[in-house]
């Protein structure tokens, strides 16, 4: 635990990776110590044997023929994608093209919407997350989400971070203290708030609030982080801070980020998927998408001809 912590601190002090150090960091990626022995991550304890055949704590995302309807509206059309572990994948595309909707299928946030129907296969680590045996609570623990607008709870900074651990039954003060400190350090917020953990989180600036929300997600020890336009409500400096953070976090987490900002996609993502009218038009390495797009529509979008 301790060595892990100091490693995290070391990572924080590193500047956003240039090409070399980025690939170096990727080279010696160690699997993060896994608290719930990831194998049965999303399953109810009853169906452990069924889950055991799936890989040892892998968290890649596979989607096959995903269709999603809101009532009569066909929001996602036959979407297929493979998202690798420990990579940053960006979803770009004009407003209302289904990027956020697609993102929300990965932690089943669409369950909250009444007339939303999803068909097709969505697997995380080889497990169908829409299967009956899936424990949505565990799924959401493993797949954290950052929203467009920072949404800290109107309680203390400490209680915000401790929310998820407490949900999963951690009550011991020393353990919680440790999680709070580790999560805040990971999110690069510790230095700024360590002396006012008991202050209400609503008193923080927008950028701090968003990093608090990231820390709050990290406290649940997720494997995947979904970010839904996390910087669209922030100023350029806070945006830069969050982008640095994404670069640091990707060594240990799989990150999927929806963004309207194409420069942002080129700065932080390894792969990019271009969405249009509920379909993925093109998906590939970010540099390929932006330098030599194969589809005319992608080219038109990234050169600013529409959108």
């Amino acid at each position: 635990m301790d060595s892990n912590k100091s490693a995290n601190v070391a990572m924080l002090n590193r500047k956003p990776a240039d090409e070399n150090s980025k690939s170096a960091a990727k080279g010696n990626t160690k699997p993060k110590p896994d608290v719930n022995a990831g194998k049965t991550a999303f399953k109810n304890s009853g169906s452990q044997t069924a889950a055991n055949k799936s890989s040892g704590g892998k968290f890649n995302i596979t989607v096959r023929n995903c269709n999603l309807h809101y009532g009569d509206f066909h929001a996602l059309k036959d979407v297929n994608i493979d998202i690798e572990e420990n990579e940053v994948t960006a979803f770009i595309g004009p407003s209302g093209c289904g990027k956020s909707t697609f993102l929300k299928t990965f932690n089943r946030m669409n369950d909250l919407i009444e007339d939303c129907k999803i068909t097709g296969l969505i697997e995380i680590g080889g497990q169908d997350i829409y299967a009956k045996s899936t424990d949505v609570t565990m799924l959401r623990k493993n797949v954290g989400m950052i929203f467009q607008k920072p949404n800290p709870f109107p309680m203390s900074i400490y209680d915000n971070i401790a929310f998820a651990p407490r949900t999963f039954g951690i009550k011991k003060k020393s353990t919680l203290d440790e999680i709070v400190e580790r999560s805040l350090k990971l999110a690069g917020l510790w230095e700024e708030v360590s002396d006012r953990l008991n202050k209400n989180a609503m008193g923080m600036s927008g950028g701090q609030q968003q990093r608090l929300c990231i820390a709050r997600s990290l406290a649940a020890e997720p494997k995947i982080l979904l970010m839904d336009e996390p910087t669209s409500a922030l100023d350029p400096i806070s945006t830069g801070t969050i982008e640095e953070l994404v670069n640091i976090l990707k060594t240990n987490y799989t990150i999927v980020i929806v963004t309207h900002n194409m420069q942002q996609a080129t700065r932080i993502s390894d792969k990019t998927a271009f969405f249009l009218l509920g379909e993925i038009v093109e998906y590939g390495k970010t540099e390929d998408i932006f330098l030599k797009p194969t589809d005319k529509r992608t080219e038109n979008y990234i050169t600013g001809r529409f959108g």
Partner: protein
Amino acid sequence: MKKNAHQRQIFKYSALKVISFVMVGLSLLALLAVISFILIRGVPYVNMQLLFGDYENEPSIKPALIGTAYLVLVAIGIAAPIGIGSAVFLTEYTNSKSRLIRVIRIATETLAGIPSIVYGIFGYLIFVVALGFKYSLIGGGITLAIMILPVIVRSTEESLLAVPRSLREGSFALGASKVRTIFNVVLPCAASGIVTSLILAIGRVISESAVLILTIGMVVHKIPEGFASPGTSLALDVYYFGSHGYPEQAAATGVVLLVLVMAINILATFLGKVFGKGELANG
């Protein structure tokens, strides 16, 4: 020609301003007249005998103070949990567009609009006659609870709906269950509104008289022995003193009632501010 039209506009504008100013003045005057009249007539008669003395030769409102306390206890004790529970069900567990919700909403609004004397006759027929409670504080308290229930449901619902959806989503996204989300995120955020609505409901209980005339017996001279015994309330004492030849005491009791209700309203505003500090200032 054009200029004329413009001048007419200006005239209309200033005339309206003057008229509305006069109207505001009149309504303020009415309010001031009531308050100052009651204070002038009543304050000289507010004394220890009236407040805490025994009701023997001189009238006292001690039985009414105790009776009122019993009524508040019963009415809020019953209406608060049921009202808050219903509001949570309505906002968190049902689709706001469903027919059930619309029916319930119409029902609560109708309930809120029923004249209180109708609640009174209901309480009389059910508790005093049918259930054989005779005149009792508990019967009156339960009737009051039914009367304030729709008010509590409605205002609690408003406070719950004011909690941003993003907070619920944030909680769910962290793996929290619905129950945990409601108890640890939604209800704490809505606390100020809920507390305010409960305090205002207490105000309604204290100032209610029509219901109680028919249900608690208006026994002004005896301290109630418990929930089952008959009693009186402050508002009833005003009526009793006024109609039995003690106009000064009636005014004095009015002063007590006025001060109490005003204190409650100030407390409600104050608590709303304290709880609400920075709470939902999500920007």
